[in-house]
């Protein structure tokens, strides 16, 4: 009993520390985004609590017409994309987890291979173009529906579902599709929640594919809009014009960049708390007995 208490205390203390360590930089980003730019400059970035609050940076971002539109695009991708991705990935992963699938081994190797070997931007672009998906929002969903990583990870979740369940259902006359939808999926809610979150974040953060495939600014997802503000990107081009380019660029205030970060991530951050309850212990396992 003593060991249990000590364990709890140490546990809580450590986690609190970790919580603080991860919270501080976010606090910083949040605080800076509300700081008046000249104060930020004067303090050279060491702002712990702004003296001059200002929502200037937010006004700048949110006042653009395209902000709402871009958010809508990203939201569309995040919802539709996630649902489709989950369906495609989970069904494949479940199939692979059933040992009786004849083509199991070759199929797994096939998926594995795609994870390791990738041909680069050009062939993908040509495919998207030949499918007439250029400038179409589906070009941001269909090519990204699934990935070997998620297939294998999901499979390992399905592997741990006891076969007794399946057998019982078969006896009851269910076929694989029925089993999958009525039994496996409800049982796998924690996994679905986790992967759903991963996919949603991935779709929400769509940037590079949009640059390549979407030419129409009205169809740009949020990240592109924000990247245009965060002009000092990490991979700006080099070349004989670089110096001139750098001169001409507006170097936006750090406060603006922070505001852009807050704007970009807040919506997706709100999803996690909603999914948290699915990570509760042993919620579903009771149904086995039933």
């Amino acid at each position, binding site marked *: 009993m003593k060991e249990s208490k000590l364990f709890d205390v140490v546990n809580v203390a450590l986690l609190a520390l970790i919580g603080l360590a991860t919270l501080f930089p976010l606090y910083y980003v949040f605080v800076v985004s509300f700081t008046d730019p000249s104060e930020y400059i004067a303090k050279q970035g060491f702002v712990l609590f702004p003296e001059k609050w200002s929502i200037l940076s937010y006004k700048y971002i949110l006042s653009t017409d395209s902000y709402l539109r871009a958010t809508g695009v990203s939201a569309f991708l995040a919802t539709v994309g996630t649902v489709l991705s989950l369906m495609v990935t989970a069904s494949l992963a479940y199939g692979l987890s059933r040992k009786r699938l004849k083509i199991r081994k070759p199929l797994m190797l096939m998926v594995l291979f795609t994870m390791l070997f990738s041909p680069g931007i050009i062939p993908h672009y040509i495919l998207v173009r030949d499918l007439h998906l250029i400038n179409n929002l589906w070009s941001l969903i269909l090519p990204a529906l699934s990935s070997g990583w998620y297939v294998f990870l999901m499979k390992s979740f399905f592997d741990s579902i006891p076969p007794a369940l399946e057998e019982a259902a078969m006896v009851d006359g269910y076929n694989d599709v029925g089993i999958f939808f009525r039994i496996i999926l409800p049982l796998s809610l924690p996994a679905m929640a986790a992967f759903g979150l991963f996919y949603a974040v991935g779709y929400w953060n769509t940037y590079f594919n949009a640059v390549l495939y979407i030419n129409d600014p009205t169809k740009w997802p949020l990240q592109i809009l924000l990247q245009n503000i965060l002009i000092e990107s990490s991979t700006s*081009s080099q070349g004989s014009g670089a110096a001139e380019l750098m001169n*001409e660029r507006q170097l936006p205030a750090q406060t603006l960049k922070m505001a852009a970060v807050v704007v970009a991530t807040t919506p997706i951050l709100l999803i996690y708390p909603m999914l948290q309850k699915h990570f509760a212990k042993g919620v579903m396992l009771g149904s086995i007995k039933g």
Partner: protein
Amino acid sequence: MNKRTNRRLGTMLAGGLALILLAGCGSNSASPTGSAGQTSAGAGEKPVEISIITEFNTPEAPGPDNPVLLEFEKKTGTKLNILWTSPNSYGDKINLVLASGDMPDLVKVLDFNNSLMRQMIKQGAFWDLTPYLKDYPHLMEYPESTWEKTKIDGKNYVIPSVRPSHGGPWLPIVRQDWLEKLNLEVPRTLDDLFEVMKAFAEQDPDGNGAADTIPLLPRNDLGWAEGVLNHSNGKWKEADGKLIDTTFEPGTREGIEWLRKVYAAGYMPADYPIMKETQSEDLAKTGKVGIYPNTIEAIWRVQAELIKTDPEANFLPLSYLESAAGTYAPSSPGFSGVFLVPKSVPEDKLKKILELMDYGASEEGFALACFGIEGVHYTVGEDGFKNATEQAFKDSVSQSSFGKIFERSDPYLWAYRTGMPKEVFERNKTIVDERTQHSVDDPSVGLISETWLKIGPDYTKKMNDLKTKIIMGQEPIEAWDRYVDSLKADADYQKVIEEMNAAYSAK
């Protein structure tokens, strides 16, 4: 709030036509607007559809019903489909565009040395513009040297996105108020600079009682130290009709040693190699920096911020540096990006495109591109400078949007920034003029060595890294000597020198 937005918006519209404004408020010059080929405007012909790809730097991209865009279409009889592309990934996008063959009618490539573009030019993928250009007077107003420098194999395949040759960030800028306070002369040689830095460090020029001054704040390139000693601009130098690699020059070694001395004395920030541009600029804005290389107009950004708290603050861009080798004011290539037209575009459309670009190069066209429509997007102030309105911000009218396509040659482009008082602008113009007199050009602009394209980046990186390490004291100067010796024995590297020389003589 409004003023700030206005100013920020204003800073996006670096006035390229300040000269004209001072002369007389946007009135057209005597020559007819739009000039040659302007037959189709309003003649009842169907507007020619032209697609263009370019980068942009405004928060939003202009939409298809943008008033400035519509005005351009009206004036030139075109229907423009502009693919505005995020500058952060422009390189990748352009390579994709080139590689996939899905090219718009007018393609802007930012890197003139882009090997894919070069390959494709050689393979005949783009129009040779040379025979057509003479019909377009405004384009011909671009400096002769710029047209020369952008020739490939002796022909003009590209329209340069023209920029001034002087006013760029390649010379130091000094706090003049501090010089005056400490009774120092404007530094001319590296030794002068060192003395000035010493004074800044020791004599507390900002008067706050703390020795916290940063005498020299480098900004991504310290090449001027070598340049002034070598009397060269960049890696290549012309001597006796040949190209010499300045890596082997004694001036380079001296330059490294001088910088090492500066670093050891503590006159530069200890971790200058990792400072990013925004960090440098923010640091400069705190008023602690004595010498800071930057563009003449960009330093105004810093100064404008500084004079809020320190009205005396005044940054003086140096007109030139001097050494035993002569006076030195490095020039810029004269362009930033190039435009090409794919061969798949039919000839009459090609002419229409040139007409469009020609209009953009005229006073009227350029003013429209950068400032928009008078009364709607800007008003003219009493000092003759244009003042932008809210609407300009909403419509993304800026040199950073339309001004990325339509260019007009203006040698003082980098001398002016909105909000800059007239005296400062006049002073800047004089500095630009002085620099032009001491100009040192880079003879290698536009020259390509195939081998260098393949192996160059690694060598450049090694050289820069080694220089930095020596400057920071992590390696001795002898390491440079050893490296230089190894280059002399390196067959690939020597091949590059040969190829560059071949290209140079071929010009």
